[in-house]
């Protein structure tokens, strides 16, 4: 009885397609995490990629503009650790912000706290977008 999981019986083109799909399932979410929207771009979902990129970039830079805080790695307060994980979701934007020393925060402005949340949510939305890129790569979504 033929096993559908047995790739030895598949024709060469089907094997190649499956291998490409498998690698894309890893590359797309990684690329999408590193640069928002890139995971959709490399799968030719250009409009979705542009919209996702715009949304994450606008939220991240609006947060910085409101003098929000960018969390650094820490092992202190639980909310600070979660803030760091959320910020890290923005990929290259986070590393650039840390390198340029942006996002020091401002406790004297009420809107600065909104900015901090904007930056965290930008990263979290980018995680969602990266998972979506993975779903497209494995064929779970169009």
């Amino acid at each position, binding site marked *: 009885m033929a096993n559908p999981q047995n790739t030895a019986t598949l024709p060469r083109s089907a094997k190649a397609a499956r291998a490409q799909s498998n690698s894309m399932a890893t590359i797309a979410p990684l690329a999408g995490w590193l640069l928002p929207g890139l995971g959709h771009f490399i799968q030719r979902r250009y409009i979705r990629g542009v919209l996702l990129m715009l949304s994450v970039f606008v*939220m991240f830079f609006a947060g910085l503009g409101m003098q929000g805080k960018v969390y650094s790695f820490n092992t202190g307060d639980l909310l600070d650790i979660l803030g760091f994980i959320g910020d890290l979701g923005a990929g290259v934007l986070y590393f650039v912000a840390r390198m340029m020393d942006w996002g020091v925060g401002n406790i004297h402005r009420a809107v600065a706290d909104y900015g901090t949340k904007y930056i965290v949510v930008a990263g979290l939305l980018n995680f969602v977008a990266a998972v979506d890129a993975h779903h497209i790569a494995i064929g779970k979504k169009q």
Partner: protein
Amino acid sequence: MNFELSHFNAALLFALCASTVFGITQRNTPRDMLRYGAYCFALFVGGVIVAAWAMWAIKH
């Protein structure tokens, strides 16, 4: 870099960006994405307005 936004405009911008990502990632077809994005945006903004009136009512 300094960006001045009122609290309401900040909530609107948040709603717009978040509902765009939700719409794209949570639905399959462009038509459904648009509808779900608009639905999320309406819920975000509606929630802000309801919360604002609730706080006004608590204060008065």
